[in-house]
C-alpha cells in the first residue's frame, strides 16, 4: 500500500479533496480503516485526515433537549459527557461496551457512522434514536435520517464526495443491550436499542405506543422492528403482554445465517434481548438480568451467562470464529 496523507484545515478543503477522485479516503481515528489497509482490502492513493479540523469535535445540547455531536468527537469524550448521560442514555450504554478504551480514545463518531460495517454498536442506537446525520459535500450540507443511512455491508447513503460533519440526536429514554460471542468487549453479535421520547415517561412508565426498537449486527444493516412497534401500541404493558408480542413478531422476521451465528440462534437472541430491553424500558425500569436499572454498565467486562451460547443454542460450528 502506498498513499499520501493530507491534513486540510477547513471543511471546504476537506470536501474538495475527497471529491477530487475515487482513490481518496477519509481517515478520522482510523481504527476501522487501518485494519482494512493492513488486510489489503483498501488501496487508496490519498488519505484525508481530519486532525486539523478541531471545530468538528464537541457535544452541544440543543433546544429540543437533544444533542448536536460533532463528527470528530471521540467515543471516549462521548462516553464521559454529562449531556450524553442525561439526554441519550442508550447511547451512553452502547459506548460503555464499545470495543475497548484504546479504541474509544481514538475512534470518532463520524467514522463510526460512515464505516458502514454491520457489526457495530452505534448504528442501532442512532436508528432507534431517530438521529439525523449531517453530511457536507460540494453542494452544501444535508441531513440523512439514520434509518435511511445504512444500506448494507460497508455501504451507506453518504456520497463519495460527502463528509459526515455532525450527528443530531433527539433526547430519549432507553437502553442498549449487547451480546458478544467471545470476550465482553468484542464486536456485537447482536445489538438491541429501545428508546422512547422522554416526555412519555414523565408520569410513570412510558406508553407502549411510541416505543422504537432497532436491532443491529444480525444482518447487513441495522433495522427497526416496525411490526413489533405497531403491535405494542395495542398491547397491555405487562410482562406477559410484551413477551407474547415479541414472540409473534420475531417469529416473522427474516433472519439469515451469519459467519458468527446461525439464523436459529440469532432469532433466539433477538427474542430474548428485545423482550428484556422492552421490559426495562416499559415496565418498572428494572434490568431483568441485573436488577439495578441505573447501574448503566451491568456486565463490567465479565461474561454474562445469559449473553453467550447456551447448551440449547450452540454457535454455527460449536466454537469461536
Amino acid at each position, binding site marked *: *500500500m*502506498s*498513499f*499520501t*496523507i*493530507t*491534513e486540510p484545515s477547513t471543511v471546504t478543503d476537506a470536501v474538495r479533496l475527497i471529491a477530487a477522485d475515487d482513490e481518496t479516503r477519509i*481517515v478520522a*481515528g*482510523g*481504527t476501522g480503516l*487501518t*485494519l482494512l*489497509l*493492513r488486510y489489503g482490502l483498501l488501496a487508496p492513493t490519498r*488519505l484525508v*485526515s481530519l*486532525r486539523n479540523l478541531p471545530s468538528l469535535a464537541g457535544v452541544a445540547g440543543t433546544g429540543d433537549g437533544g444533542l448536536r455531536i460533532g463528527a470528530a468527537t471521540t467515543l*471516549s469524550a462521548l462516553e464521559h459527557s454529562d449531556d450524553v448521560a442525561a439526554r441519550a442514555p442508550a447511547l451512553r450504554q452502547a459506548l*460503555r461496551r464499545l*470495543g*475497548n*478504551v*484504546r*479504541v474509544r*480514545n*481514538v475512534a470518532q463518531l463520524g467514522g463510526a457512522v460512515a464505516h458502514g460495517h454491520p457489526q457495530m454498536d452505534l448504528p442501532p442506537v442512532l436508528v432507534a434514536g431517530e438521529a439525523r446525520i449531517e453530511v457536507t459535500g460540494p453542494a452544501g450540507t444535508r441531513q440523512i435520517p439514520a434509518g435511511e443511512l445504512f444500506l448494507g455491508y460497508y455501504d451507506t447513503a453518504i456520497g463519495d464526495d460527502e463528509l459526515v460533519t455532525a450527528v443530531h440526536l433527539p433526547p430519549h429514554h432507553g437502553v442498549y443491550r449487547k451480546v458478544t460471542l467471545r*470476550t*465482553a*468487549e*468484542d464486536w456485537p453479535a447482536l445489538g438491541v436499542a429501545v428508546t422512547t421520547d422522554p416526555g412519555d415517561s414523565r408520569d410513570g412508565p412510558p406508553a407502549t405506543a411510541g416505543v422504537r426498537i432497532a436491532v443491529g449486527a444480525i444482518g447487513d444493516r441495522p433495522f427497526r422492528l416496525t411490526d413489533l412497534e405497531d403491535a405494542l401500541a395495542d398491547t397491555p404493558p405487562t410482562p406477559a403482554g410484551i413477551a407474547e408480542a415479541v414472540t409473534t413478531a420475531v417469529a416473522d422476521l427474516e433472519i439469515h445465517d451469519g459467519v458468527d451465528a446461525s439464523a436459529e440462534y440469532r432469532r433466539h437472541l433477538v427474542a430474548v434481548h428485545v423482550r428484556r430491553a422492552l421490559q426495562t424500558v416499559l415496565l418498572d425500569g428494572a434490568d431483568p438480568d441485573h436488577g439495578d436499572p441505573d447501574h448503566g*454498565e451491568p456486565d*463490567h*467486562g*465479565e461474561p454474562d451467562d445469559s449473553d453467550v451460547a447456551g447448551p440449547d443454542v450452540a454457535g454455527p460450528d460449536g466454537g469461536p470464529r
Partner: protein
Amino acid sequence: MSDDVIRVVLNGEPVTLPAAADDTLLEVLRRERVHSTRESCGQGVCGTCTVLVDGRSVASCILLAHLADDTELETAEGLGLPGHLGVVQEAFVAEAGFQCGFCTPGMVLAATELLRRNPTPTDDEIRHHLAGNLCRCGAYPEILAAVRHAARLLAEEA
C-alpha cells in the same frame, strides 16, 4: 505532512522518527527498539501494543504513525526502568501482577491512564478500564490487586 518522518516527544525526549505514510505507530516504535510495545492480535483487541498518546491509551497496531505526529508518547520504558521502576510498575511487582509478562507493559500503561484520571477507582472501574487488556496467563486477580496497590502507593505519595 507527506514527510517521511514524525516528530514526537518520546518518553520526555523530543525525537524525529522515520515513518512512511502506511507505517503504524507500533512499527515505528519497534524500529526504534522500544521493545515494551508489542504486537499480538494486530487488531486493536488485546492491549499489548498500548501506548499513551498525549496521556490517552491507544492501540498502536491500528494507529497510523502520522496520526500521532506532533504528540507526546509514553511507553513502559518512560514509566521506569529496572532499578528505577515507577510506582505502578512497583505495584505490579509487589502483587506479582503477571506471569509471562508479555501483556504487562500494556497493563501498566492502561492502569497509569486510569489512575491519573481516577486516583481512587473501585474494583468495577478498574475492571471496566482494563477490560480490553488480555492476559493469556490469567493473572487477572493479581493484576486487579496490583492496580489497587498502585492507587494506595500513589495516595501515600501525594
